[in-house]
C-alpha cells in the first residue's frame, strides 16, 4: 500500500550528501523546477518571486528542528536514540537505532530501563505496527540533555557533520520537529523580503515532523503510513486563506507538512482553526482540497511524499517532473534541490511558456 506500483523510477537519482553551502551554493540558489500542467522549467530558487504572482499566499511551517539524536546506553551497549514526537512532558515516541546509518529494532522490551544522555528512560510500549519505534518515559530534563548532547538526526546518505543551525529554516520558531521541515530551507530573509515586496503574502502553521515512519526493508503490512504528529492551524491563517480565495489568489504550501496540517484542518469545505495530533495521509485516494500548489524537495519513490504529490498534482505531472529532474541532475533529499508544483487546479493551466514573461511588470491577479 505504501510503495505505489506506479512510483517514478528513481534508481539513478543523485543524493545531496552535503548542505548547499558546503557545495558552494547559497541557500536560496538551489535549483528549482517549476512544474505546471504543461511543462517543467529549470530555474533557481531565487526566481520564486517571479514565478509566483501578487496575491498568492505562501503557507509556511514554523516548526524548528530539535537536536533529536542522543547518545544512549542500555544493557546491550551504546546506541543512538532518535526522539520523534513529544506526547507529554516526559513521554516521547522515539526510535532506538544502532547508529544513524543502522536502524533497529533494538532488544528493548517494554519496561526496560536505560540511560539517554544521562537521563533515565523507561520503555513504555511499542508503537503498534512499527516495532522500531517505542514510547519512552524520561525522568529528567530532556531539553537540557538535547542542548548538551543532542545532534540533529542524520541519515546514512548525508556525509556532512552540519550544526543544528543548518537544519533550521528561516521560519523556525517553535521547536519540535525530529526531521527538518526541509522544503522551506532555501528561503532566506532576503528572499522573503523580495517576495513580500512583490505582493506575496505569508501565513503560518505548525506541524512537528516525527521520524520517517518507514525505512527501506521495513515490513509495512498494517503499518500506518504516517505517524501521529502535533499540528496547529491558527485563526489568522484561516482568515488569510479565505481572503486569498476571495481574490482569486493561490494558496501554496511550503512543504508537505503544511499540506498535511491544512488538510487536517479542512472541515466543511474550508480550513478552520485546529490543533491536536494528525496522521492524515494524502494520496490520490484522499486528494488535496486546501491548497493549489506546493514548494517542496525531491524524495525517494515509494514514500508517502510521492503519494501526497500525486494527490495534489496527479500522476502525470509527478511522473513527468521527476523524470525531468533526474535528467537535469537535480539533487535529492532534504539538502537538495526544489520543486514548485502548480498543477493549476481550479484555474486555467499556466504553461511553462508563462515563465518567459518575466520582464512583464507585476500586475495584480484581480486584473482578469
Amino acid at each position, binding site marked *: 500500500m505504501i510503495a505505489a506500483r506506479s512510483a517514478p523510477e528513481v534508481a539513478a537519482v543523485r543524493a545531496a550528501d552535503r548542505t548547499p553551502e558546503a557545495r558552494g551554493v547559497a541557500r536560496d540558489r538551489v535549483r528549482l523546477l517549476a512544474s505546471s500542467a504543461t511543462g517543467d522549467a529549470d530555474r533557481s530558487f531565487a526566481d520564486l518571486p517571479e514565478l509566483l504572482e501578487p496575491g498568492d499566499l505562501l503557507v509556511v511551517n514554523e516548526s524548528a528542528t530539535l537536536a533529536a539524536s542522543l547518545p544512549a546506553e542500555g544493557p546491550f551497549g551504546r546506541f543512538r536514540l532518535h526522539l520523534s514526537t513529544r*506526547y*507529554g*512532558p516526559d*513521554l516521547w*515516541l522515539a526510535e532506538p537505532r544502532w547508529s544513524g546509518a543502522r536502524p533497529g529494532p533494538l532488544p528493548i522490551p*517494554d*519496561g526496560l530501563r536505560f540511560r539517554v544522555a544521562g537521563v533515565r528512560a*523507561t520503555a*513504555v*510500549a*511499542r*508503537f*503498534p*505496527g512499527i516495532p522500531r519505534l517505542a*514510547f519512552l*518515559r524520561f525522568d529528567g530534563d530532556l531539553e537540557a540533555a538535547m542542548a548538551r548532547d543532542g545532534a540533529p538526526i542524520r541519515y546514512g546518505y548525508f556525509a556532512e557533520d552540519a550544526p543544528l543551525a543548518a537544519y533550521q529554516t528561516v521560519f523556525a520558531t517553535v521547536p519540535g520537529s525530529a526531521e527538518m521541515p526541509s522544503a522551506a530551507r532555501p528561503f532566506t530573509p532576503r528572499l522573503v523580503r523580495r517576495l513580500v515586496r512583490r505582493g506575496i503574502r505569508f501565513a503560518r502553521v505548525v506541524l512537528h515532523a516525527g521520524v520517517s515512519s518507514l525505512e527501506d526493508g521495513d515490513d509495512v503490512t*498494517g503499518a500506518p503510513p504516517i505517524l*501521529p504528529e502535533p499540528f496547529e492551524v491558527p485563526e489568522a491563517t484561516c482568515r488569510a486563506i479565505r481572503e486569498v480565495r476571495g481574490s482569486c489568489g493561490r494558496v501554496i504550501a511550503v512543504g508537505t507538512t503544511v499540506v498535511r496540517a491544512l488538510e*487536517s484542518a479542512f472541515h466543511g469545505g474550508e480550513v*478552520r*482553526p*485546529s*490543533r*491536536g*495530533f*494528525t*496522521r*492524515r*495521509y494524502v494520496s490520490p485516494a484522499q486528494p488535496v482540497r486546501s491548497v493549489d500548489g506546493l514548494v517542496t524537495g525531491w524524495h525517494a519513490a515509494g514514500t508517502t511524499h510521492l503519494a501526497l504529490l500525486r494527490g495534489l498534482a496527479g500522476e502525470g505531472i509527478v511522473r513527468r517532473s521527476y523524470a525531468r529532474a533526474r535528467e537535469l541532475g537535480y539533487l535529492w533529499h532534504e539538502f537538495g534541490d526544489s520543486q514548485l508544483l502548480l498543477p493549476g487546479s481550479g484555474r486555467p493551466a499556466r504553461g511553462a511558456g508563462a515563465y518567459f514573461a518575466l520582464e512583464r511588470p507585476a500586475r495584480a491577479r484581480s486584473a482578469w
Partner: protein
Amino acid sequence: MTGRRRLAVVTGASRGLGAAIARLLARERYDLLLTAREPRALQAIATELRGMGGCVATRSGDVADPRHRRAVAAAVRGRGRLDLLVNNASELGPAPLPPLVDYPLPALEHVLRVNAVAPLALVQELADPLAAGRGLVVNITSDAASGAYPGWGGYGASKAALELLSRTLARELAGRRISVVSVDPGDLRTAMHQAAFPGQDISDRPTPEVTIPFWGWLLHQDRTAISGQRFRAQADRWELPA
C-alpha cells in the same frame, strides 16, 4: 505527581481493550484498581502488571451490581483521590444481534444497565475522590451510538445514552474540576467483537494495542480543555476544541 502516585480505576480490565489500557497505565506509573466479573482472568492481569512495580488492586463483580460498585468506591476512598476512571466494561447483549422488533426487553434493560447506568453510577460513587484528584472520566463508546446499524440497536442505544450522559456530566461537573470524555476505540479484535460476528474471521481487525498512541496522547492533554469531547482513537486526527 512527584511524591504521590496517581490512581486509576479501569472496569472490564481482564481482557481486550481494558487490559491494554491497564497495561499502558501501569507503565505510566499509575496505581490501578481493576475490575471484571470473572476473578481468575482479572487476577492474571493484575499479577502481570504488578511485575511492573506498581500497586495493583482488583475487585471482581458486575458493574451493574450496586454492592460491587460500593466495594470499588470503598477501595478508592482509602486513597482519597482518583485521577482517572475508565468506564470500559460493557456487554454486547444477545448474540447473534437481534433486530429491535424481536429484542427481548429484559436483555435490553440489562444492556442499558451495564453500559449506561453503571458508568453513571460509578461517577456518582466516585465523585468526591474524582473531584479531589481533578480527575478524568473516560467513557468507552462505539460508532454504534450513532450508526443505526441493523441488529446493533440495543447496544447502540446504550452507547448513545452514555455519550449524552458524558457530555452533560462534563458541564455539570466542570465546577468540581472533574472532566469527562467519551472515546470510540474503533473496531478491535476482542471477545466482544467476535461475539458480534459469530463464526466470522475477524483477524483483519487490529488488536487493542492499536489505540496505545491515542491513550498516550489523551492522558497528557489539559483535562479541562478536552472535557465534553468525543474522540475516535483510530481516527486520523485527535483534535482539541477550538
